[in-house]
Every structure is written in C-alpha cells, then in structure tokens.
C-alpha cells in the first residue's frame, strides 16, 4: 500500500513537471516501439470474441485495470473521458479507447460494460480467460500483481459501480497493483507512444491527431 502511495505521489510530481515542459513541445516524434503489442484475442463487453486486429484502421489507446480498483483506474478513465471529449465527433469515430481488465474472473463482460459506461459508452472493455489476459499483459510488457491472497468484501471498496445481482455480504474481490501506462497505438496496430494520466491532454490529443492523419 505504501508503495502504491509512493507511486501515486510520483505520478503527481511527474504530472507537475510534464505540465511545465508541455509549454516547450517539440515536434511529435513517435517511432514504432519494437516488441510492444501485437494482435491478441479477447472478449468484449457484449461477450463477443474479438481479435485486436479487428480494430485496425483506428487509433487506439489501451489502459489496463480492473473494476474494483479504488484509485488509479477511475482516475485514468476520467482522464480518458476528458481527453476523448477534446476530439471532434469525426475524430472520435477514428479512435477507440480500450480498457483491458486484469481481473477477468470478477470483471465479467456485463459488469465491465456497466463500469465503462459510467465514463463513456464509446469506450471498449475487454475481458477474456486469465490466459488471454496474461498474454495481452505480456504482449504490452505490462504488469499486475495481486496485493494479497486475502480477498475483501467489495462493499468495503470505494468503487465506481457495484456488480448487479450479487449478495453484498458475499461479494468479494482481490486487490491488485497494475501498470498505469496508456499505450497509444496507430492504425496498423503498432505501439507508438507510452503515456499516462500526467501527460498534458493537449499533448496527448496532438499525438492522437498525428496518428489519425497518417
């Protein structure tokens, strides 16, 4: 927990410095990041099997997290909501924001859909088997760790939305730490930049637009 607090503090500090350096933006340079990402299969929030390549032709932002995350995930999705709103409707149609759960056992497609819908109904939630999720995590060289083998009642977790049709007194969850990076992916599926919630939104939007226009 202490480590998480430290990391969040670091992110806030980095955010501060990022906002300073944003004033001196250099021309956007986004090489393909070799070995980061690639095609994978998963299950979308409607329970449909998908291939990541199905989204080819769209600029994509991928985030990892889980619905019972009490801190960074709601913050990240709030950030992405605000980021998305800076794009024109036409641009939004050429962009997909994807949230991949690292807790597919709890985050069923239906629950993920309801969770994501709290931020923006255009956003895509992806789940799947644990193997599928672990593969996606490894492809993006992301990480997640269970914080403890002990599960906690979800009622004790400050979270966005409770899971429907569950008995509050029985509904338990594991808590995780996970990668906070936002992966910016071009229309051919290549990872082109690594961002986070400290990236000034205008800077992030500029990068998205560069990829849209490629």
């Amino acid at each position, binding site marked *: 927990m202490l480590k998480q607090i430290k990391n969040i503090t670091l992110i806030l500090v980095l955010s501060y410095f990022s906002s300073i350096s944003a004033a001196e933006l250099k021309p956007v340079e986004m090489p393909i990041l*070799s*070995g980061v990402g690639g095609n994978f299969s998963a299950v979308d929030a409607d329970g449909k099997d998908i291939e990541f390549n199905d989204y080819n032709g769209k600029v994509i932002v991928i985030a990892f997290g889980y619905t019972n995350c009490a801190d960074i995930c709601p913050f990240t999705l709030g950030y992405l909501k605000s980021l998305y709103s800076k794009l024109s409707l036409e641009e939004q149609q050429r962009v997909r924001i994807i949230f991949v759960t690292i807790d597919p056992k709890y985050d069923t497609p239906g629950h993920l859909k309801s969770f994501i819908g709290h931020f923006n109904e255009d956003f895509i939630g992806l789940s799947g088997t644990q193997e599928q999720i672990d593969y996606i995590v490894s492809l993006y*060289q992301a990480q997640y760790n269970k914080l403890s083998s002990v599960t906690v009642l979800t009622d004790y977790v400050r979270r966005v939305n409770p899971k429907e049709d569950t008995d509050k007194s029985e509904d338990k969850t594991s808590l995780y730490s996970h*990668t906070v990076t936002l992966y910016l992916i071009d229309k051919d599926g290549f990872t082109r930049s690594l961002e986070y919630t400290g990236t000034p939104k205008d800077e992030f939007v500029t990068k998205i637009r560069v990829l849209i226009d490629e």
Partner: protein
Amino acid sequence: MKSLVKPTLVIILFFVGVVAAAPTEIDERVRYTSSLNVMASMLMNWYGSLIVKDQRIQFSPIDSKWIDYRSSYPENITHIKIISTDLKKITKANKYQFTINTRINSKDTEGAHSQLISETFNFHVPLLANPLIEKITREQSEEMAYLDISDYSRSHYKARHFAYAWLAYLDGVDDVKQVINSEQWMDVAEYSLKIGRDEIHGSIAFTLKERQKYLAKGGHLLGSVNVTEVDGKADHFILDLISEWKGINQEGKTVLAKVHQQIEIQIQENNEWKIISIKEEHLLPDIAPWSGFLC
C-alpha cells in the same frame, strides 16, 4: 573472469548512430563501412591491451606506429578505469575526436600507483574502410592517490571490445568479422529472437536476415554489458547486452527498440571467443519514466 560480472555503463552515451556510406537497398543485409561502435571497440582494444595482468586474454594487435606513444603509459598497468568520455564530430570532415579520461593503476617495486590520464584520439573514417586513429594527444597526466579499481581488468575490456564489435556487425559493418571471429559460428550458433508476438529461431545468419525486416537500417547504442559464468560449463559465459536501436524498418517506418541480448560464449583453447547461442528480446523502451510504475 568473475571481475567481469560488474554491470557498468561506460563511455557510450555519445556513441550514437551509424556513419559513412549509406546502403542502396534495405532488403538485403545493410552494409556500412563504419559505425561509431567500431571506434568504441578499437578503444576498448587499446585500453585492454595496455593491461599486463592476465595475458591469456588476447586483443587485436595495435598498429606499430603507436609503439612510442604507448610507451608513455606507466609500466606494469594492472587496471584502467575510464572515468569520462567526450565525443566530437569534426564538421565537414569524416573525423571524430574522443577525449577520454582514465584512472590508470600500475605496480612497480615501490608499490601501487594511480595516475589520471586525459588523452584525445582523433579518428578518420575513410569512405570505404574502417576508422583509423590519426593522432593521439596527451592532454593531461598526473599522479593521484591510489584507489582500488580491480573490476576494470583486461577481461572487462575484452567483453566490451567484443560487444562493440558485435553491435558494429549488427549495424552493418562487415570488417569487424575478424574481431568477433564470426566464421566459426555464424552458420552454426542458434539465434532466437522475440519481438512482441513474433518469434524467430535459426542460425545467426538466418535470424539476422529475418531481423532485418524489423530493424532494417539504423544503429545500436550500447547501454550496459554484464558477464556471468555459466554454471557447470567451463569457459562458458553469458554476455548480457542491453542496447538501444534507432532506425527504420523494411517499410521505411521509424522504429525504436530496446534490445536485450544474452549471448552464450565459449572461450576456446586459443583464447578466441566463440558464440554458442544468442537470445534476443525487445524490451519496453526507456521513453516513459512511469512505464515501470504499478498502482
């Protein structure tokens, strides 16, 4: 050899890119006449061969025209530590200037000594040949209080001599084949490469050809070298290299890679290094300080 096991970031930050003749095609192995890695390898050879301790580790011969200059170093050098480097490209000429500050430890009948030596190597890079040391200038030489630098031995420099030459070869410089002794293992050693979901296995020659699709034209910048012994195998070592590659892929798109190579080498009876296998994977590039954060 255990002294090699220290992870170190030496020189390097300045050894960026590839210089000289540009390739005409990308689909074949790109050939350059030179890379800054060649100069770095030559410097590792220069300093390693000055160290007298552990002569079983061999270096390439140094041009005889430098005999006089080399006699100006202290006798019986036991260790050399490169403290700092500075690289300058001489504009409008294919010339480079490396200024290198070293701490040199030596031993004589009176005991152990340390000396700070600052010298500048002027390289000329001919269009179709390897770089040449044109001139060396001794900028400074002064006695210092003795300090143990025993990690910076002959083997320390041998590992880097080899590593830079290997990276120069990957950059497209064929003339370093002799340094890396590639004839012995190029078609025999196993090279496995993992780039995201793509995995390639085969001989070094085969994998390098496939690798060309991803990293077609560019240069390696060495970040770190680490050497460990292989348990239970005499004279076998793992050379762990991390380098950054910048360039373009076969489609001409800009690519950035953090290349992690684990090279198993065998030191043969004649003290030549033979590559047994190479495992390479591309890690998350160091472009985002937060990419390792977990929340």
